[in-house]
């Protein structure tokens, strides 16, 4: 068994888990934070994206033990109380979701991409957004409104 201590959404949490436990299993089953989804078995869909030490990663492709000692932000950690994060608001206003299954991963990927582009002073245009969404699959929307949502939020973040 592995002892795992992680700061999740600003709160220190710890637990004893089997060494083979995936981070996403720890988040969903131990912490009961079920906003982070599992959409595939092949590390391709991005429904499980969370931030580890500030960077977007696929929580289905890393063990909880590998994340020991890190800081994790999940979709539950974005809003400020009842006030949605600008990216969440943008998805809502631009109809950036239909069934919503991909949405937590999309939003975590989107906030990461806006941060990276802002930090390096590059312009996050539509082409860049589409390329950056390589690791996130949506079966419903056709991506168009997701791209629009991200563009909208990027101007407000």
């Amino acid at each position: 068994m592995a002892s795992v201590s992680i700061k999740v959404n600003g709160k220190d949490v710890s637990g004893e888990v089997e060494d083979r436990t995936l981070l996403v299993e720890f988040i969903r089953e131990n912490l009961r934070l079920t906003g982070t989804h599992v959409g595939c078995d092949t590390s391709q869909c991005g429904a499980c994206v969370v931030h580890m030490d500030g960077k977007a990663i696929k929580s289905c492709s890393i063990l909880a033990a590998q994340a020991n000692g890190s800081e994790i932000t999940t979709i539950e950690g974005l809003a400020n109380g009842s006030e949605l994060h600008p990216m969440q608001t943008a998805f809502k206003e631009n109809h950036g979701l239909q069934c919503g299954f991909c949405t937590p991963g999309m939003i975590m990927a989107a906030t990461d991409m806006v941060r990276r582009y802002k930090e390096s002073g590059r312009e996050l245009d539509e082409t860049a957004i589409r390329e950056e969404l390589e690791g996130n699959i949506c079966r419903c929307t056709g991506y168009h409104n997701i791209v629009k949502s991200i563009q909208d939020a990027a101007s407000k973040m």
Partner: protein
Amino acid sequence: MYETVYHRATSTDDAVAKMAEAEDAKFVSGGMTLIPTMKQRLAAPSDLIDLRHIDAMKGIAIDGKKVTIGAATTHAEVASSSELADLCPAICNLAGHIGDPHVRHMGTIGGSIANNDPAADYPAAMIGLGAEIMTTKRTLPAEDFFVGMFETALEDDEIITAVSFTAPDKAAYSKFPNPASRYAMAGVFVAMNGGDARVAVTGAGSDGVFRHTGMEDALSSNWSADAVSDAEVDEGDMLSDLHGDARYRANLVKVMAKRAVAAAG
């Protein structure tokens, strides 16, 4: 996933010692290949020895034209290094097109070359740049390091610590990604250094990454996309699978080589 025991190494010596104690351990770095493989139950190491927290294996050092990249440096770090981009933009561009942003935040250059997937990108850069692979036991030229499909010269308890190369006069990488997996169906790295051209091909060869001396000769005397057209790419050496047959891949290699030469300028 089968059961396993996780260990975090603090140094390469510590990692090697932990490897010696374990029954059937594997090193894990970014885990972007190994963890998915374990999830599919295609690998079942008794122990995992994590290299990701060994500081000595991280970072990019530049000394004149000599570049050294620590094995635990992520694809994202290589892609976004402005010092490296000034010297060898081709490798930054290559790293920035591996998988997707989330994979690039975890996956490492050491893990990629240790795995030697026949469709991985970095092996082409290592051969194209004439890189040296440094391990806990020795330093090997890239051409001796890559042995065949998923096969390298690495011993079980040997760790890649860094790779190093001299930045070429010009270089570029062009890949035709599989539309689903984004791995290369053909990827060609070209480099020109003091009149000597190098051409390394990944994704297409039936025995993994390889040098194409025909194209190298043609490009050494005439650095132009046209020079590549006359070179022969042997269909007999190509992979043939559901993504593309040998003839298609042989053609793709030429097209990617032309694009790479054009991009290198």
